[in-house]
């Protein structure tokens, strides 16, 4: 059976465009998370774990409905719960699905020194290739969203793949499929932006959220996961969503000017070592040093 026949053309009872429409292969794909209709049911959390065969974690009570403090190597999709007081004495309970944002300019990829360990596909998915990962953890530093997580057992780093295996087959990611309220949508970036803007307009016009808007931060070139927020001027309130994320300066410096300097320095070091060896011969270990080490 060709895959084309599995592509959905009509769908019943589904809000928004057909999931996965136009997302095969080359077009840029995007997840839309409408935080204003998220009910924090965590179906996406479990769908993610089950589809990706991730082992369940042992969690502990932490005075919150949130499953754990942040994403983990085996927990790539986490709803962040935040109680937010309102000016009128009322409150809001904000729930935001946290996962890899699939940045157009990924900081993790920029920071990664290992050949082929992080790739970006033509459809925008940023994927970790654990076979090539050297476990240096630089991607963790490079990510402005605190997403990649190190597994000490395998010494490799993991994160959301945007279900690249499903998406290449014309399916939506597992989290989208599991969402019961239609808070999660999946499609091309253009379609999702359009849907997100429409929803934000509705929130401003009919629901009194004057600052409602779409989160698609330009600092990382836009993202493959965009949010509708009740208050787009305060993304930090949604469990620390950075207001203007960008690739850290350390990574930028290191990957361009510093990298050249570093290479020069390394070359200089090698020359120095060689010259030292030619001039003084091999280094001899003194006995006192040995004793000192065994004492501790």
């Amino acid at each position, binding site marked *: 059976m060709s895959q084309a026949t599995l592509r959905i053309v009509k769908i019943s009872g589904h809000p928004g465009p057909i999931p996965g429409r136009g997302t095969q292969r080359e077009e840029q794909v995007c997840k839309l998370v409408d935080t204003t*209709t998220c009910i924090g049911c965590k179906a996406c959390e479990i769908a993610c774990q089950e589809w990706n065969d991730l082992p369940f974690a042992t969690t502990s009570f932490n005075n919150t409905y949130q499953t754990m403090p942040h994403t983990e190597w085996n927990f790539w999709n986490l709803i962040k719960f935040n109680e937010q007081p309102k000016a009128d004495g009322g409150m809001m309970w904000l729930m935001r699905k946290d996962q890899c944002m699939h940045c157009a300019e990924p900081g993790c990829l920029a920071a990664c020194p290992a050949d082929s360990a992080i790739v970006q596909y033509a459809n925008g998915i940023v994927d970790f290739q654990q076979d090539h990962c050297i476990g240096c953890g630089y991607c963790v530093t490079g990510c402005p969203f605190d997403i990649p997580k190190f597994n000490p057992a395998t010494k490799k780093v993991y994160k959301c793949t945007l279900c690249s295996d499903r998406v290449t087959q014309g399916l939506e990611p597992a989290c989208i499929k599991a969402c019961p309220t*239609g808070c999660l949508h999946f499609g091309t970036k253009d379609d999702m932006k359009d849907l997100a803007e429409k929803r934000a307009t509705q929130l401003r016009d009919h629901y009194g959220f004057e600052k409602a808007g779409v989160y698609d931060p330009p600092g990382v070139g836009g993202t493959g996961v965009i949010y509708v927020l009740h208050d787009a001027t305060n993304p930090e309130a949604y469990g620390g969503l950075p207001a203007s994320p960008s690739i850290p300066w350390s990574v930028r410096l290191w990957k361009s000017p510093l990298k050249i300097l570093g290479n020069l320095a390394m070359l200089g070091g090698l020359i120095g070592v060689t010259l030292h060896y030619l001039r003084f011969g091999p280094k001899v270990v003194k006995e006192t040093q040995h004793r000192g080490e065994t004492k501790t």
Partner: protein
Amino acid sequence: MTNGWIDIKNTDMMLIEGGNPAENHPCGFKWAIEAKRNRNAKMIVVDPRFTRTAAVADLHLQIRTGTDIAFLGGLIHYAIENNRIAKEYLVNFTNAAFLVQDGFKLPEDGLYSGFDAADQSYDKSTWNYAEGGAVNGGGAGLSRVDGHAQGAHATPPPPPTLPENVAYDLTLQHPRCVFQLLRRQYSRYTPEMVEKITGIPQDQFHKAADLFTSIRKGGDMKKVATIIYAVGWTQHTSGTQTIRAAAMLQLLLGNVGRAGGGVNALRGHSNIQGATDMAGVFDLLPGYLKVPNPSDANFDAYLKRITPKPSKPGPWTSMNYWSNTPQFAVSFLKAMYGDAARKENDWAFDYLPKVDRNYSWVQIWDNMYRGSVKGMFAFGMNGVMIGPDSKKNIEALKKADWLVVGEIYPDETSEFWKSPGITPEDMKGIETTVYRLPCAGFAEKDGSFTNSARWLQWKNAALPPPGDCRLDQAILAEIFLKVRELYQKQGGKFPDPILNLTWSYTDPRNPSIAEVAKEINGKALAEVSDPKLNQTIKAGQQLPSFAWLRDDGTTACGNWIYSGSWTEAGPQLARRGTEDPSGLGVYPNWAWSWPVNRRVLYNRASCNVEGKPWDSDRRQVWWNEAAQKWVGHDVPDFKPDSNPKDHMGPFIMNPEGVGRLFVPIGAVADGPFPEHYEPIESPTPNLLHPNQSNNPLVKRLTTAMDKYGTVADGFNIVCTTYRLTEHYHYWTKNNPANVELVPEPFVEIPAELADEMGLRGGERVKVTSARSEYVARAMVTRRMKSMLINGKKTYQIGIPIHWGYRGIAEDEGRTAHTPTNLLSPTVVDPNAFTPEFKGFLVKLERA
């Protein structure tokens, strides 16, 4: 539900109270979100906590648990005073214009007329309509007779019956007409009073009242509002009356019978609606036929008691559908006893048990505790955990001779003998024999689920049960066949009902559920014909609907409301058609909805008196003048050829034909109108009538274990209980995925109270009620706030119910092994006998 899940998408306004659908019905809640996304619908959530439903609502009001009637009464008062009511609907489709007897008294002092304090019951003879014709003239352009109401001053002889020709006043001005009585009843429910009782500040109450009733601004009938609730309403000693209050508000606003409207109960289990329909209740037979009682000397007397006669204003018509009760009852007896049910033996009526007392849930445990119930079959439920007063249930099981538990996990009920506090020494003294039978899970069984929307949906077993596990019906069949064998061999006092029970399944030891479903639908036992339709059903054929049921023994039907679910055309409940021609989410070819595949009940009320839809964009059914019949997208809930000119009432299940703002004689035990009564354990006297704080019909149980707390005893905090979206009752604590999401039990505590106690989130707390203690970690939150109840600062806390003494976290020793229902009291609603799980008093301290 009067409507259905998908239909919620058609609404303009939602009042969600006594339920938390985002957490407990997340899949169905999709349609509430759809209404917001596609219709700009508004959502009001009234709950003791700021829940995940409140998180997506437009307005959340924090209410004191158990005071919903005060709030709804306030809304009724607001709607009437601000003229935000559906006048034409009210006059023609409800009993607003009906006159009530002279001797009837409103409960200004907390009691309706006819209260007998010694017996804690009501003589309901004055709770009745007055006999007579029209008064005051006027009306909504209807034909009417002239005349004067004749107040029935003399006490009618018992048992009271409804008058045939009800006195009425279409101007709604007569002081004894239902509308004026209603107005007077709720005139006491002012915003000030609502605030003092419920703790909802007046400005917030005004906001909610204005928003909810805004759909009837200027008398416009186009918009529609829905009310959505669950066990947050039913699990109170005022449960039934709370739902009555919601129904009255919806009738007042003209929202019943309409797409996007109605009164919608969200059922908590996948098949709890089916269990109710099939009479999983002691006082009902399948299809809501009343159970016989010892006063029914014979079948005729029984039928006379349970078959209503029409009662209405003279010129109106009433279909009085329950007048078909004899057909339903005879067909039921034929399904039960086959050839043994004959006209000569009253259709084997004597085989049916005559229920002489209350055998409801709490009573069963009380009887076991007192020693009169010797054994119990516990299938598909965990009785100890369900409570109320789990400790009493454990004590009761200790006294039983035997217990059979059919389960898929080791549960608290089957291990009651090692519940916390029982020492090895104690165990030696427990003589109960426990049989634990490995059963099948839901995915291992064929069968149908009936959902909240009344849809019967067939499912196929995904895989066979593992190991020695058996299907429920195989276990029950085995037991039945053994019992029958014993009766065959030994005779016994009355073997006939057992020996003559229909058991004609292909495999008697393991009946197929499909065969049972066909039996429930019913079949013709002899040839039956309908001359009007010019149609004949041959003997042995499945019946197409309950319209074919006969009272002469020629039809058999296990449950009349399910008739039509499995016809000669096949299993209608297994249909999977996804066509929705109206776009209203009717999906007429998906599964099968009782009754007769009708999706919205009372849908004739979606049209005005002339039979035209109130809103042409959401038209469901309508009168087709040319065809002289009712047509539309749904199955009309009406006599299909009843011309609107005949003024037949749209509420065909009531003998009046109209919706009841006032419930006459007996249908509701504790009053024709809902009145606010405090929960049995409450932090305040009833401000409406301090001398009658509680529901006067609520009887407290009297064993030494049935203790009730007061503020004076130090129980100064209001406690409510609930479920979490991450867990399903007492099962998922055995599943690592759910345990990962919420690993441990907790108590939700207002931050302000925690500050006063110097308590931090994560610390262990002890909650104590008059019954027992509960220990878990504190979840300190700003989602619950202090409230002013009659000017006094009052706190509420909340406890999820999911953990006990068996499960992953329990077995790892991560919990205190205390079921939540150790705390809840053994008091019940006097109508439905549902325990008051949702509101009681506790103390809170650091553990």
